[in-house]
């Protein structure tokens, strides 16, 4: 699925103060592409991800995913769109503590039209042997793998990842990025990953740099590295 942003702006109003979180962005993300949105805190990365993924509406501009214009969709249509096409991974793992690993993944599977099997996905993220454990019995990296499995099991066409390695050490972060890379390659899932860590850009097809809500640079990465090869900054 390809994503197209045309002159997208997001403005927040706090009293009389206007804050332009995203300003006049034009952007296209191609089907199966691994994109890294890079920028410092406050650069508008998260707002951009929210708007692209339909979690938030732009103040102006148009966002289309393939033929669907999501900026014109109402809440019900957006819910349906997310349900059928998108997967999300956050810095916080957001796992349901009362459910086992397997059951947490099932929560994602439940709302999908053509899901993968839970077993297959757990195999892909290397958690087959941990399926019956509960989140509190897992390390941070393992918990993030469960959240990846929960997103992937839906067989999404696009995955949105908001600082997925932000709470992990280097070794675990690389493991997680490796899994995302593998899934991108195996299932041809588009990945949009936001980070403030420039090193991660080395594994992307393109790096989109943001600052003060504007796209300041788009770098096409012709020498993609494997996640394990990244030199952590």
């Amino acid at each position, binding site marked *: 699925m390809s994503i197209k942003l045309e002159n997208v702006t997001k403005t927040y109003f706090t009293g009389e103060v206007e804050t332009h979180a995203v300003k006049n962005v034009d952007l296209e993300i191609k089907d199966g592409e691994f994109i890294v949105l890079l920028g410092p805190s406050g650069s508008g990365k998260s707002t951009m991800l929210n708007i692209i993924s339909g979690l938030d509406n732009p103040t102006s501009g148009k966002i289309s995913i393939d033929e669907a214009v999501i900026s014109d969709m109402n809440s019900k249509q957006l819910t349906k769109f997310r349900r059928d096409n998108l997967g999300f991974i956050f810095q*916080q793992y957001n796992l*349901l503590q*009362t459910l086992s690993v397997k059951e947490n993944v099932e929560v994602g599977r439940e709302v999908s039209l053509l899901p993968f099997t839970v077993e297959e996905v757990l195999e892909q993220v290397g958690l087959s042997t941990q399926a019956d454990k509960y989140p509190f019995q897992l390390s941070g990296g393992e918990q993030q793998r469960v959240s990846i499995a929960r997103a992937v099991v839906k067989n999404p066409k696009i995955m949105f990842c908001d600082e997925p390695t932000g709470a992990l050490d280097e070794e675990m972060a690389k493991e997680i990025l490796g899994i995302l890379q593998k899934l991108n390659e195996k299932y041809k899932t588009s990945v949009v990953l936001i980070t403030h860590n420039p090193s991660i850009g080395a594994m992307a097809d393109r790096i989109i740099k943001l600052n003060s809500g504007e796209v300041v640079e788009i770098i096409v990465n012709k020498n993609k590295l494997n996640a394990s090869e990244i030199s952590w900054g």
Partner: protein
Amino acid sequence: MLQRFLGDKMLLKNVYRTLKKQYVQLLLLGVIITLSSFIYTSMDYGIGGIYAPTEEYFEETNQEEFAIQMLDMILEDDAVFITTNCPAVIELPFSISGLKEIDSTCYYNLLENRLDLILNEYDNITIELRESKDVYFNFQGKSNRVRFLKDSSEINLSFFVAGSKPTTSDEVAITEAFALSNGLSILDTLRLDGKDYTISGFVLFPDYSLAMFSDTFIFDNETQTMGLLIDSEFESLNEKNQFEIAGVFRDGYTDKDFDKDVIDDFRHNDNLPFVSNILLTINNLRSGAIYAEIEGGRDTAMGLSIVIASIALLIVGIMVSKVLQSQRGAIGILKSMGYTNFEITVPYIFFIAILSFPAIILGYFLGVLGADPMKTLYLTIYLLPSQDVFQTVNTFAVAVVGPFIFLIVVSFIIIRRILNQKPVVLLNPPITSSSNYLTKKMHRFLAKLKITSKLQHLLLYRNMVKFFVFLIGMFYAAFLILLSFSMIGVMDRMLYDYYDNTNHNYIGYCDYLDPCETTGSQEKVIELPSAVLGDEDIYLVGLNPNSDLHQLIDKRGNNITDDLEEGLVITTSLSLISGLKVGNELLLEVGEESKIVEIIGVTEEYSGSKAYINIEELSLLLTDTSTYSNTVYSSTELSKDDYLVVVSTQSILEQAEKMQSMFNIMIYVMIFASIIIGGIIVYILTVMTIEDNFYNISLFKVMGYNNKEIDKMIIGGYLIYGIGVFLITIPVAYGMFYLMTYYMAQFYGILMPLKIELWHGGFSLIIFVVLFYLGAYVAKRKLTKISLQEAMKMYQI
């Protein structure tokens, strides 16, 4: 020091702002606390306004401690006594009451002789004859009844709450309750039995705490009153003379001794064939049961109050815990800055105190205001003296001080448990264990469910206290709703259905000396208030097996009147009270006569311990002929001139309707209270659950779950368990009602036919579901407002 003070002040402000966000929950919690305090205070003071003067009143009037009922028949020994001592009596009448009409002196001598026979058998008691006559009269367009009691000299003395005793033949004393209900005052004129009487005062009798003149459940003070005349006027009344014996204990004799020595003995005592029943006052609904009623009323108030207060307390506990968890970071920082646990605790306790105390005290003062109407409500039913309601330290302590201190102590313990953690622990998000005991136990049962269905259950189990509060609260509400519905139609089943099914509109009790005469629209009947079947004291009715005016109908709706050709038909109430069944063969004793009879059927009647027998069979048992009768049933109006007493069944139906409307008020109040309490609990808990699952909800939304699905997962479990609790409550309530009915029947001999019917269950379920949706409505609105971006924020579920 100033720094510390400012720190405290800031924390105070912080706690205030945190609680401010939950003002609706706090307000509703306040309603529950107020309700708890109100129920206890109003009932305690209301009953207290009756209890103290009643104690004194019973003491002063020498209330009977037992009553002895006697057969109104001339038995063999009586016949010998009359023949020997009463030369004026040429022909023996059938009844003792009849004897009074022939020779009043002989009547009193005979009864004196019976009293002596009793005293010869049993020691440590003092007894006195208690005579009464019932007069039916029309007043303000309705039929009324006055029971005149002949003034006694030793036991059950008359007591005047206003005015004075009648001193002339045209003066009467009646109950204040009847007078107030009918707009009568002292010195007003009341026309009774064709004669005008001036009301001299308002009277009470300690053996009639309820104006209940039979074993039906009618105690309506608007159409029934006790009455007192001067003795000569009483004697001149032409109505049927009724009598029994009132008694008190002497020399430290107790209920227990009496039960063993007298009650267990009299049925087998050959020297006392005329005694049909002996009843301890505490087991007598019309007199002594008031003790149990008053105590029961106070206990019920206390029980209701404790349940509601416990629910409130648990909710307060959960809320305090939630607020503290949300503030754990701030608390961790304060602790690391050197604030003591006590200093951090104070603002929380301060707010808990200032929020809960007004609710408790408001409930208390509303209770004080409600006590007087509560007392008045009691006095519309009970014939008891009262005094002004006044506040007591004890009640204040139980209603206000106790609950307040308990609430503060429990909150303090919860706060300290969290504060006792180290600052470093508090500065980090709490580590939530995945599963508690319930989750572990239930997980395996839920294994085969879809994950969304599984979540409905598991999210509820996360907080066991909250889950427990919900279950208790729903049980409480469901039980009250079912109890309310079970009371629908109680009076219909007890009386209305019975009279509605019969075709007679009038009952005439014949003069002792004139035989009953009947015309085409009438039927002869024998009614004997005192007979013994097996060990049961029963009301025996001799009925024609071909009767058209009084058909016996079984629970399937079949007419079983002609079964009387083969044996005895008993009422459902007798069957339930005594456990008698079809096929039982028992000894039927009527005075000194007896015969073995077989129970052949059960008629669907709940009015007292009654049995029907073929009239000819009963007549032959009582007399030498098969044509004796003492009562006439008629579809057309009977002339008062031809009978001792004429009773219109229409007036009984009206009384039954009046009683039912009294029950109906209780039903509406109980259903309303249940919905309020249940709705508040559902509201508070569902809102809490949504707050607890704030991030989960956001996450589900991000994943593509729609609001309906999320709503089902997060609060749908409440509906499932609510309905589950409701379904469990049905058999529990059924069992409890059975026990209540059994207790009433065994202890007081009154059958209170509480009944849960299918439509009660269905309708209660509808109320219950409506209650749930009302309670959860606002919570659902909160759910839809949660934004999708919350899932990205830092938190720990």
